[in-house]
């Protein structure tokens, strides 16, 4: 497998859970739990891109936020470069954030509308007291803006004066400022126009090559993911159902959900007619996940065990993990 076998992972997440309480009635008594993330484990090597894909409600965004500690997980371990993030006091966590940055989906909501763009990008330097003085910091800002493809002359403008793609570049510049080793990018291109989306994807690819940043790239668009990922993890209702290297997951998807997801992507080529297994029904609510395999209610190939026994995530070929009763263990030598 590429990049993750040898050496210490940069990020290692073990059995991460995040449950949100459902409150009812006048006294806001807790009447149940939404199990948004329910036992997620993953690793990212330095300089690697792990794509976390899934549909709405799969828990992919919550997973990203727990790793950043923008949400406190219910349980689990998040180890970054040997340090357990969940046990860090607030101050130490703040220092750690220099190394773990975030780019949000919505370039309209994630930039303070009252701050000039230069100030937004300079803020990380100000907070972490980087650079000898204001002038040095401003020079660093100019270099950053240039690097993400923006004219440093525009630093005195406000976010609303920029287009969606330009704003996402500003968000990337801010994330890049402190030379992080990991960027959690939560659907960073899904709100952009097609022609601009390609520019921002290219920027992510180029920056990784230049600075050797690892990405946790959260997305729902598998065609985008295929461009940028080294490995792909597929989530369904709070759990990872399949992980494999990019080529492996696109060439040889094993979990019926991954297959359905791949088949569902409309192909921009009318000359290529296609076979498609259309999934029936909606994903169930994460407040009441089905027993056994969570996908069995929509699965076209469910067997007798599926509604009864939860399949564990098993390594079926080196680096290829899947949680499905149809693939009950190593396929080597079978």
């Amino acid at each position, binding site marked *: 497998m590429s990049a993750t076998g040898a050496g210490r992972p940069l990020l290692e997440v073990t059995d991460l859970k995040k449950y949100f309480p459902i409150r009812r009635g006048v006294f806001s008594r807790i009447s149940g739990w939404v199990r948004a993330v329910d036992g997620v484990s993953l690793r990212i090597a330095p300089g690697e891109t792990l794509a976390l894909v899934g549909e709405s409600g799969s828990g992919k965004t919550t997973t990203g936020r727990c790793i950043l500690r923008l949400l406190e997980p219910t349980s689990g371990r998040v180890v970054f470069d040997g340090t357990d993030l969940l046990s860090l006091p607030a101050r130490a966590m703040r220092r750690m954030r220099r190394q773990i940055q975030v780019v949000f989906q919505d370039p309209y909501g994630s930039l303070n509308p009252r701050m000039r763009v230069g100030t937004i990008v300079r803020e990380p330097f100000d907070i972490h007291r980087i650079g000898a003085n204001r002038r040095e910091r401003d020079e660093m800002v100019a270099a950053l803006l240039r690097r993400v493809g923006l004219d440093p002359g525009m630093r005195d403008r406000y976010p609303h004066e920029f287009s969606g793609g330009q704003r996402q570049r500003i968000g990337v510049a801010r994330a890049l400022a402190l030379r992080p080793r990991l960027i959690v990018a939560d659907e960073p291109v899904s709100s952009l126009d097609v022609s601009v989306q*390609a520019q921002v994807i290219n920027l992510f*690819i180029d920056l990784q090559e230049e600075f050797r940043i690892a990405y946790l790239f959260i997305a729902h668009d598998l065609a985008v993911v295929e*461009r940028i990922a080294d490995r792909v993890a597929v989530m369904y209702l709070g759990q990872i159902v399949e992980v494999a290297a990019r080529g492996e997951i696109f060439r040889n998807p094993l979990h019926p959900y991954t297959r359905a997801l791949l088949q569902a992507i409309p192909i921009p080529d009318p000359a290529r007619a296609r076979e498609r297994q259309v999934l029936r029904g909606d994903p169930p609510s994460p407040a009441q996940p089905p027993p056994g395999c969570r996908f069995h209610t929509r699965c076209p190939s469910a067997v007798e065990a599926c509604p009864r026994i939860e399949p564990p995530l098993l390594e079926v070929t080196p680096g290829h993990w899947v949680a499905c009763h149809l693939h009950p263990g190593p396929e080597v030598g079978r």
Partner: protein
Amino acid sequence: MPRILEVTDLSTHFTTPEGEVRAVDRVSFHVDEGQTLGLVGESGCGKSVLALSLLRLVPPPGRIVSGRIVYKGGDLMALPERGIRRVRGREIALIFQEPSTALNPVFTVGYQIAEGLIVHKMMKKKEALREAARLMEVVRIPDPGRRVRDYPHQMSGGMRQRVMIAMALACRPSLLVADEPTTALDVTIQAEILDLLRNLKRDFRLSLILISHNLGVIAETADRIAVMYAGRIVEEAGANDLFARPKHPYTAGLIRSIPRLGDAGPEGGDRKKRLAAIEGTVPDLLRLPPGCAFQPRCPDVMRECREHVPGLRPLGDSSDTVACFKHHDPEGRPR
């Protein structure tokens, strides 16, 4: 094939404090009976305003300033308000992107589907509700007998979009205009809705205008495709032809810039494969560049592109059209 809709030189403008916005600018296209026209474009290109214009539903300060909308041989622009009201829903129905805002939260979905039947077809309420349940079955909502009494908030996004489609089908329209009908939905649900639309088109002998920014959705659904940029149609052609041999540099750039599965290059290579992006951004309709709106981003720009606006002209003797000086000179003569 007979034409169900022929739009000629349609313009819809919005008067704003900053100036006149030409959201739809001299747009011409047609839809043949039983066919699907895919209308593709990026945000702000005017495709939604065009959809509203077809039914004369443009909200102020917008107004249709010129053009003809000939539906089944009659010009909708010439109809009095009462006449166009009879066309809406009964002849041409609209489906919007956001089913949660297009549905009324205080009425059951069954009643909302039945409402059109009560108003347009003079059905009794009970009969109309029975028909509503039948329509819900047609759009594959499970357990329709029970779910007619559901309120919109009790349904998922995919189910709400089915309700919208059932509402649109209620009065048996001949033409369905679907504006980004799957954009708010997950891919697996999107695949189901597109499959449903294809089947309904066949079973109800519908003609369809499908509006989307997603070239994949368009490619899988449309017979013909019209590409919009900055308020204008820049190219129209058969779906296969448009993807295989795009004539307008914008169409070509758009097709090249979308990532497609299986095209990401070898695994484990030193470099990830970059995408062929179109440089620059979509122009602001208030500050359009001189000449062709695409010229600042165009790789093939020529001198006349900055001086004249290219008109939409036929290519040879086909019904395909393109608005680009690579194919016609400023006088409209083929090159």
